[in-house]
């Protein structure tokens, strides 16, 4: 039962130690990332044995203290972020050479990891606001470490939009406390009725989380932030930080806002998701740099997840809703691993080649064969070609859409995949381009290994994951009642 506390305590302890001993920050950092990995596996094990469990901090009852809650969805998300965190930590030991930058990178990075874990396990609305704030602050500070002027202005815009997002979320939390007198999610799930106040609460919280997840109308802060941040930071921003807001939507809508579910909401969210898919893929096609391409593809993938979410909201409990849930989880997991691999590979190219402009990428296959192989695998996973988890996710989504006869969404999903295939092959075409200089193969093991492992997970491991994930995720609505 205490394993849930280690999830927050280990990265926080690591952050404190890295602050006090800046010269050892490199070693302390990735060791605590490994420790976090163990804690995540422990939580996964506890959940698989005993199912979802509550843990009230300080032992206070009746919604006074803060409760932590871990169910199958939390366990999957926590293990996903632990694996990516470990890979990114190993990569950043090689990426950051200047000790002054390391001294501040590692504490901020571990604080971001603490915020992520605290957000995944928390079951108290105001606590979610504090974790969202810590996440946004640490991410903005890390983006600003990119050093260039664009990184600074991107970090400022990211911080301000993030603040507006969490303030809107806080407005929803304040209304919840006014109307229901409690902040605990489990208590709220029983008390929530379908009246005008609950509609105001749901809209405020959803608006706040949409801003945080960079859904279409509020996505303009994401591409500059993710493109100008240092490579390991943008890997984490795209793979994990954006997922936190989507995880909260998955946590809030099926549980608390279940009485409010109606067709209108799903069309709004689905429509925005579809628009995000189209707009993100179109911009990715026109991107000049790998990191910008990856950032816009994140905007598109957020669209897929919101499309799946809109289905989960409106479908009645049962087989169909469970299938969509599994599809959304698979899509989220694969996108996280593939996007992290893509950004880390772009980081290697940036450091070795000095730039990441797509048009001048020819010769990368000769000089950096492993990185190009990682790029290819990541693109396979992003498009959703068969050996990857995304294929299974989209397959689940499409079967449910077919069953429901929602033709418009099917066209959107398919054309989205087509567009992502277009920008992926454009990238790979340049990377495999011939260059007449005699190629010298660079073998840099430590830097390229994490990216390779992540892309292999995205394509091969997750390809066989649909059955175990389906079994592991209990039917959603039955979880917290």
């Amino acid at each position, binding site marked *: 039962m*205490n394993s849930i*506390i280690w999830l927050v*305590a280990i990265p*926080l*302890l690591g*952050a*404190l130690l890295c*602050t*006090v001993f*800046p010269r050892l920050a490199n070693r302390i950092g990735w060791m605590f990332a490994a420790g976090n990995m163990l804690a995540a596996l422990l939580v996964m094990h506890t959940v698989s044995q005993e199912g979802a469990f509550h*843990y*009230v*901090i*300080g*032992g*206070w009852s*009746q*919604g*006074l*203290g*803060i409760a932590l809650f871990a169910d199958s969805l939390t366990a999957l998300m926590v293990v996903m972020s632990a694996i990516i965190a470990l890979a990114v930590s190993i990569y950043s030991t090689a990426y950051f050479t200047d000790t*002054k*930058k390391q*001294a*501040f*990178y590692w*504490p*901020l990075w571990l*604080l971001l990891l*603490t*915020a992520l874990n*605290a957000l995944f396990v928390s079951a*108290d609305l*105001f*606590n979610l606001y*504090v*974790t969202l*704030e*810590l996440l946004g*602050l*640490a991410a*903005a*500070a890390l983006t*600003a*470490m990119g050093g260039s002027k664009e990184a*600074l202005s991107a970090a400022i815009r990211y911080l301000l939009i993030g603040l507006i997002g969490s303030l809107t979320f806080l407005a929803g939390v304040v*209304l919840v*406390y*006014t*109307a*229901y*007198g*409690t902040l605990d999610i489990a208590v709220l799930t029983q008390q929530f009725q379908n*009246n*005008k*106040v609950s*509609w*105001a*609460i749901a809209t*405020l919280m959803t608006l706040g989380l949409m801003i945080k997840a960079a859904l279409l109308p509020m996505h303009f802060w994401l591409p500059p932030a993710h493109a100008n941040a240092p490579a390991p930071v943008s890997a984490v921003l795209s793979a994990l930080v954006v997922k936190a807001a989507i995880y909260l939507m998955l946590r809030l809508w099926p549980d608390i806002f279940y009485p409010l579910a109606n067709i209108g909401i799903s069309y709004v969210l689905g429509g925005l998701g579809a628009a995000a898919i189209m707009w993100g893929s179109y911009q990715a096609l026109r991107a000049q740099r790998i990191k910008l391409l990856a950032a816009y593809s994140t905007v598109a993938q957020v669209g897929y997840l919101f499309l799946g979410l809109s289905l989960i909201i409106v479908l009645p409990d049962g087989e169909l809703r469970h299938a969509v849930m599994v599809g959304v989880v698979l899509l989220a997991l694969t996108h996280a691993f593939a996007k992290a691999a893509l950004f880390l590979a772009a980081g290697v190219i940036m450091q070795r080649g000095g730039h990441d402009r797509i048009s001048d990428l020819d010769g990368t296959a000769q000089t950096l064969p492993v990185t190009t192989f990682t790029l290819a695998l990541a693109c396979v996973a992003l498009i959703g070609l068969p050996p990857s988890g995304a294929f299974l996710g989209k397959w689940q989504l499409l079967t449910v859409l077919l069953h429901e006869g929602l033709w418009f969404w099917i066209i959107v999903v398919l054309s989205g995949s087509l567009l992502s295939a277009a920008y992926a092959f454009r990238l790979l075409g340049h990377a495999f381009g011939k260059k007449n200089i005699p190629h010298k193969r660079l073998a840099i093991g430590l830097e390229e290994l994490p990216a390779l492992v992540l892309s292999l997970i995205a394509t091969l491991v997750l390809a066989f994951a649909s059955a175990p994930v389906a079994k592991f995720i209990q039917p959603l609505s039955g979880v917290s009642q």
Partner: protein
Amino acid sequence: MENIAWSAFDVLLIAATLSLAWASLTTEHLRRAVIFFIAFGLLLSLIWLRLKAPDVALAEAAIGAGLTGALLLAAVADHQKPINKKPDQKFSLADFVANTFLNLLFIAFAIVFGAAYTFALNEVNDSRLTDIVFQHLPGTGVTNPVTGVLLDFRAYDTMLELAVLLAAALGVMAIGKTRRDFVKPGDMERGLSQWLIPTLIILSLYLLWAGANAPGGAFQAAALLAAAGVVMRLTGYVDGGLPQGIWLRVLLVSGVGGFLLVSLIMMFAGRIYFDYPESWAGSLILLIESMATISIAATLVVAYLCGQPDTWFGGQQKENKHAD
């Protein structure tokens, strides 16, 4: 007669606050906007007093108006040109339509939010969590309910909030070094500071001690201590009275560290996380509170320095060069 006078006072107070907020966000000179914002912060702490929230009034006056104001004033010190009106401001229809549409949108948002708020108010009987807090308060060893909630019932929240503060301080230091160009302190400031700083420190200790049973506590005490640091910074001590090298780093970390260690010790002793034993609950809270006070004060001063102190990596503090 009694509550009519109070309602009149309320309307006056609200009108003053709203007009200050309006002034702060719409004047063209940025420096004037910051000064209006500081006045708005002070009026806000008056409102907190009216709503019977003395702890929050202390924190608002010290952190919300004081430190935030000092920080913003330092930031806008070198802003000359009026920001709002661009010289070639010709009337463009598109802007006008966009602005009115946005205004209407936000007015509608306010009306919906207000309606939801008034409906929500009479949904629940007034007590919400009050009775449960007072029922469990004796178990926390403190009599001030706000300190009880902050450091015992929701101590996990406060730990994460200190982590937010630490993240902000690290982010501020990661960006660059503190600025060194300073006006040489005349005898006026030195005279004042030699007298003012000890008073601030004593007041801060009083607030920390009073926090257990009267309005006060870690954040208010830390804000006063940070005010002493700001006064030192303004009177020539470039590093604002912060310790050197590793001691500064340990100090910054001791707030969150105190929370984490105590909570983990409770867990090792077989109790639930953050569950203080009845007998030493009061003294445990005081221990955490005092570590948090010094740590928050140091973090607030670092945030005010707007950069990395010279001695962060352990070097000697360079002689502070005064620009006249």
